[in-house]
């Protein structure tokens, strides 16, 4: 057992080192540099010395190995550094943006999983019926639509035409709402982006659940239960669905890792102040420290989600743990 965990640990360590290195190299391999965002709009009227001074100040004239060393040093000490573009501490920025992404993407993940599981199970239970065909068509249709398009349609109907929900932002922060008023304000802002997110991500869970459920329904013990005269409802929920949930749980845990970066497009369409949008802005402006920090957070959470899945799986599915102990 110990050996298993040590092995896993080494494996993860290697992944993290690789990831850190790629994370450092990728932004620097992109053409262009952050000068225009460091210097502001009048970059064209600066002398070479002035430009050099700015690059020096931000350590961009150092050799690549030197930059790499200071990058690793900063990560080990937990110092994310300073955003070139926003001229603010990155830790502060992340602290501001993270809750919004967690709220949006977290709720989106939970809701789409629940809907996907319910409909996936229903679809499999009625395999071959028109319900199954309809559900399948509908979900395939949803997954084929681009998220920004769904977002724009929702905005133009529910915001621009009906005026039910706000078009942009996560809350009306400037109106100093508190308590329940603030809660409802945030909720109103959340509805459209959340709906969009659920619509585009629900198909994944639906398909996995449907397939997994079909497999389970073909098992002998379901046949046995039917033969015993167990009630339909019990077979469906107790025998079939619970067992069919295993692959969904795996996907759910892995999705937890992608949560932070997964809503980038939706955050942009709805001007939602999340981490995904921050990442997008940082890439556009070649804001190296911010690119590194956002990608780092996202890759880390993927690794951690994997680790979590590795650790939790034996508890969810005793078969896996049992095999290992042999």
């Amino acid at each position, binding site marked *: 057992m110990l050996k298993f965990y040590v092995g896993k640990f080494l494996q993860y360590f290697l992944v993290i080192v690789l990831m850190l290195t790629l994370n450092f190299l990728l932004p620097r391999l*992109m*053409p*262009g*540099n952050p*000068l*225009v*965002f460091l*210097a*502001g*709009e*009048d*970059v*064209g*009227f*600066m*002398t*070479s010395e*002035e*430009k050099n001074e700015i690059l020096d100040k931000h350590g961009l004239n150092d050799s690549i190995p030197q930059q790499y060393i200071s990058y690793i040093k900063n990560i080990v000490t937990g110092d994310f550094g300073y955003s070139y*573009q*926003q*001229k*603010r501490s990155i830790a502060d920025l992340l602290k*501001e*943006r993270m809750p919004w992404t967690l709220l949006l993407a977290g709720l989106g993940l939970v809701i789409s999983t629940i809907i996907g599981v319910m409909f996936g199970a229903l679809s499999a239970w009625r395999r071959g*019926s028109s*319900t199954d065909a*309809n559900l399948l068509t509908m979900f395939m249709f949803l997954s084929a639509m681009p998220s920004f398009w769904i977002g*724009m349609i929702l*905005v*133009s*109907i529910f*915001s*621009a035409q*009906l*005026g*039910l*929900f*706000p*078009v*942009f*932002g996560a809350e009306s*922060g400037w*109106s100093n709402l508190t308590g329940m008023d603030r809660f*409802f*304000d945030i*909720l*109103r802002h959340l509805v459209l982006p959340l709906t969009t997110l659920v619509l585009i991500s629900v198909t994944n869970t639906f398909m996995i659940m449907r397939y997994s459920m079909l497999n389970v329904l073909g098992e002998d013990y379901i046949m046995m239960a*039917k033969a015993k005269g167990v009630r*339909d409802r019990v077979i469906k929920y107790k025998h079939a669905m619970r067992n069919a949930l295993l692959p969904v749980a795996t996907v759910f845990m892995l999705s937890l890792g992608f949560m932070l970066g997964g809503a980038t497009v939706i955050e*942009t*369409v*709805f*001007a939602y*102040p999340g981490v995904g*949008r*921050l990442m997008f*802005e940082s890439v*556009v*402006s070649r804001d190296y420290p911010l690119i590194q920090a956002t990608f780092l957070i996202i890759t880390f959470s993927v690794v951690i989600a994997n680790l979590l899945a590795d650790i939790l799986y034996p508890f969810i599915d005793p078969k896996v743990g049992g095999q290992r102990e042999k």
Partner: protein
Amino acid sequence: MKKVLISLLSAFLIFALSNASVQAASSVDSLKVGITKDENALNPYTYVTGYPGLDLVNLLYDNLFQLDENNQPIPWLVKDYNMSEDGLTYSFVLHEDVKWHDGEPLTANDVKFTMDYFVKYPKSRFTNPLSQISSITVSSDTEFSLTLSKADPNFMIQPLADLPILPEHIWSSITAPDDETNNLGSGPYKFVEHKSGQYYKFEANLDYFKGEPQTKEIIFPIIEDTTAMFNALQAGELDAISASISPELVEQFESNNAIKVARGPGYSTTLFQVNAEKYPMSETPFRKAIDLAIDKQYLVDTVLLGYAEVGSPGFIHPSSPAHNTELKVSFNVDEAKRTLADAGFVDTNGDGFVEGQNGETIDLTTLVYSGSPIRIRTAELVSEALNEIGIKNQVKAMDATTVDSLMWPDFDVSKGRDYDMGLWSWSNTMQLFPDRMVELFHSDPTIGSVNIGGYKSEKFDELSQQLMDTFEEEERMQIIKDMQAFVSEDVPFTTLYYQEIVNAYNPEVFDQYVFQVGKGIINKMSFVAGDWSGSSPNVDVQEEVVEDSEEASIVSEADEGGNMLFLYILAGLVVAFIVYILFIRKRKTSGTKDEFEV
């Protein structure tokens, strides 16, 4: 299923209700103006964009002079001023009752401090124009004088109408201005808060020396996606937007009775840049042929739907006082072909495209920003026009930073360039200062700091020298006009168009916006009461209100009707779907029961 429906409905109702209450509470004194970018801390060292970033800074700070509607300087913090005849000495008297937002008085010492500070801690835009000042003398709290080392015709515009005055009692202890977040100024608005990526909030400075500003507070929500911004304006969530409306949407906005559209000349210049260092673009006839092949009027009509001014062959905008009116826009495909043939660019191998004078293959690439549909469309049309006269080329769209790194590596023209041709554009400052033509075309990279085509011409360098040695205003104008005439003949690049600025706002909330030529409605004049119409009659700003005319209302009614119909259909579909699902469910459950329980 029933429960789900009921809870959905009740949630729906709650939202509708809370929506109503929020709208009722909001006051007309609060204005929401959408901006497209986070501008960081809004002080003169840290703002990001020239517009609207610097204009937001200027709501917090004041300048000695202020540019009016037509970009002519008018006294602002300065009450009275005097210029010596040789243009070397200026004396100023400041208004007495000007106070910083913390109540401290603004004095001539603050002005001197600011000028010294910008020299000590450079910020190119503000520091470079200060270089002519040889001494600053403060004689009292409100009086000071400046001595210049050489006369500068733009001195009143830059630095005097551009340099924000900083409070000495705060900035004297600041040593890293680029990282500073303080933004206490003397302007009509006080900074309240900034939520990164979300919004800025300003409140009125009730003690402002020009009188109370026109709104109690202004909120600037940050919305990067312009479509979302347009939607927010139409939904009434924003009262005005800083982004210019894209041409295809102008009509839609104009037909919306709740929205007023203000449009006028834009000074941002779109051009077809060529790399004049590289063969065959190094040949004047080749460049001339490119210019002749492009139908600028067609670009304006099709890509910009008429919301632009056709590019003047001499670069300078027709509404600028420095514009050379004798130059005519040229477009002639036959002449373009003839120019090519006469210079020895002929199709020798019969592939339909011309070869170089010594038979070299010509296959060029036109770079364009992938983020801008208008630019891509323009580039495609230009590319087609060039193929038409036999210049083989194709369009390559890449992200802005990548294109910049190829056309203008490190933003330093002395570092060379790696492209053939590209669609480029210069911001409005190039048109505000016509003498910047020197920077555009001078062969010496230290003078021609934005000569990204690497264009070299002794004749132009001579003209530039003349301009730099001349201080007499009329002579300078003449030289600038000569420069335009020369440029229109030698074609270092082809000026395509100046896109109009189209701003939109909700006139019911606030209707006192002032359209500043070349910029738009977000500026100090919009929010401080007064008459800023200025003097220059050269400019034609159109404020278009859609009257309640029959035509307009018919259009909007039809529009509305269409939308309602669409909604009914949509609602019908949803209901049909729910009924269908319920029906299927009922039928199937009874069916399965039969199978198992019998």
